């Protein structure tokens, strides 16, 4: 294992930003934009394909947003684990009394 350097608070901050990115991807509006295009020209070839496009992009975008959310959740959990491990180690170490009884 290589060297580890981490600040759990900063890690949580990053997790928050990654969550926000996931939400932004999920609500980017691409599917809705294609639906708007379709609504502009009812009955047309454009509408036919734009409607299909609105459906076709929905799931890939949801999956992409889910990747951000999963990575953010893992990062947030790790921050807690790092912090807990550090606190536990500190507590354990502080229990050690050095010197004559």
């Amino acid at each position: 294992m290589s060297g580890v350097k981490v600040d759990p608070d900063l890690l949580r901050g990053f997790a928050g930003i990654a969550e926000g990115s996931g939400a932004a991807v999920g609500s980017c509006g691409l599917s809705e934009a294609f639906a708007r295009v379709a609504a502009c020209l009812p009955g047309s070839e454009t509408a036919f394909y734009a409607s299909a496009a609105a459906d076709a992009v929905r799931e890939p975008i949801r999956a992409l947003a889910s990747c951000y959310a999963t990575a953010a959740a893992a990062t947030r959990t790790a921050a807690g684990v790092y912090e807990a491990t550090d606190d536990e180690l500190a507590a354990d170490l502080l229990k050690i009394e050095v010197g004559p009884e």
Partner: protein
Amino acid sequence: MIPDRSTFNTWDVAGLSGAGGEVENSVKRMKKAADDARDALSELNWEGAAAGAASSVFGDLFVESVIWESFGEDVSREIRSGARRLESAAPKIKFLVGAIESGPLYVDNQWVVMLRPVPMSRNWAKTMALTAANFQNQLNPLVKELGEADEAIATGTHGRFGRTDRVGDLPDLRRSPRDQVPDPMSEEGLAHQDQTRALAMATTVAERTESSEPGKRTVTLTMQDGSKHVYTDFDAYHRRLEHPLGGFGPTHPAPMQRVEMFDPSGKKVSSYQSWSGATRVMLLTEDGWLSVDQGSRGEILVMKDGVEVDPPPGLAEELFSHPKATVLGGAITALEEGTKLPAVSDKALQKVHVGARFAGPGLAIGMAAYDVISAAPEDKCVAAFSGISSAVGGYGLGLAGASGGPLTAAAAGVGGSWVFGYLGKKVGEMVCG
């Protein structure tokens, strides 16, 4: 897809560019989200195996966002490019249609410039027909442009989806909506327009005159194309008529009605007579006059140039009491409804005013013959007859102008001849072989 007029009227051309721009805005939001995450990660003072893994994941997410951004920008460009073409054509169409419809012309749902059903002299109708053709030539390229712009957006979008594996394929191009009107710049489309206008002019009353003298009343209906229907109601008592089934007609007073139809050059092309329960229809064919007589007891005699011929099975029963003639109502054929042996109805004729649609009894005969022939097994006969009669039938039923429909076939067969002259020709061919 070339839209018909009613579809085009539902299009929000002005809003399309904005909607296309929103496609690009949305992928830019995806890209910004990836940028934010990657920047935040790079500023984090985080080292170790997990930090390396996070860098890899968010690096991949960034690459994804670049791919989606490129995809969205390309699609958006296709949409906005087509939108600009539509934005250019649409106001020109609206302006031109407005100009056309400010006078005695109008544009139908198939973008055909037509003459309004209003009183007009023959010279005025001729001038208006030329004006309609001129406006048509201005309108056609604009209508074509609507279809091409729409197709460009669709093809471009379809192609861009096909070049990425990030989304599923769009439906096959062959499944996309077809043109709602024949291509107005093609030979077929131009023929469709000419034929639609010609049929309407041949069946729209432009002038109506009435005259009467003791024992005789005449109504002359002049159509927009100059053809005429002359209805005469007179007392057969004053004449000694040859009966169509042989022998001589009544010598006692018997009202007789007759409708004669003349083409724009003044040549008689059909006549319909009824008296004392008997009916005679005559149609001019390329090979001479065809006459179909029905006696007062229902007996049928078909003659070609005075020689008796055998009609196809079923023709005799259908010819004088065709259901479509009843569906159409008496107005367009002037045949009295609901009778086994329909006669020209004075009451029905009274409803035929200037601007009304009128095709005379020949229409009913043509439709009846068409249906009988269509039911026969000889495909050759069906094919030969499916031209103008189906067109006239379609016109009468309000189906004229359906894309790729009977009018197209009719137009291909008619050439430059007068629309109803062909009806007579085909009826003759079918009945007489």
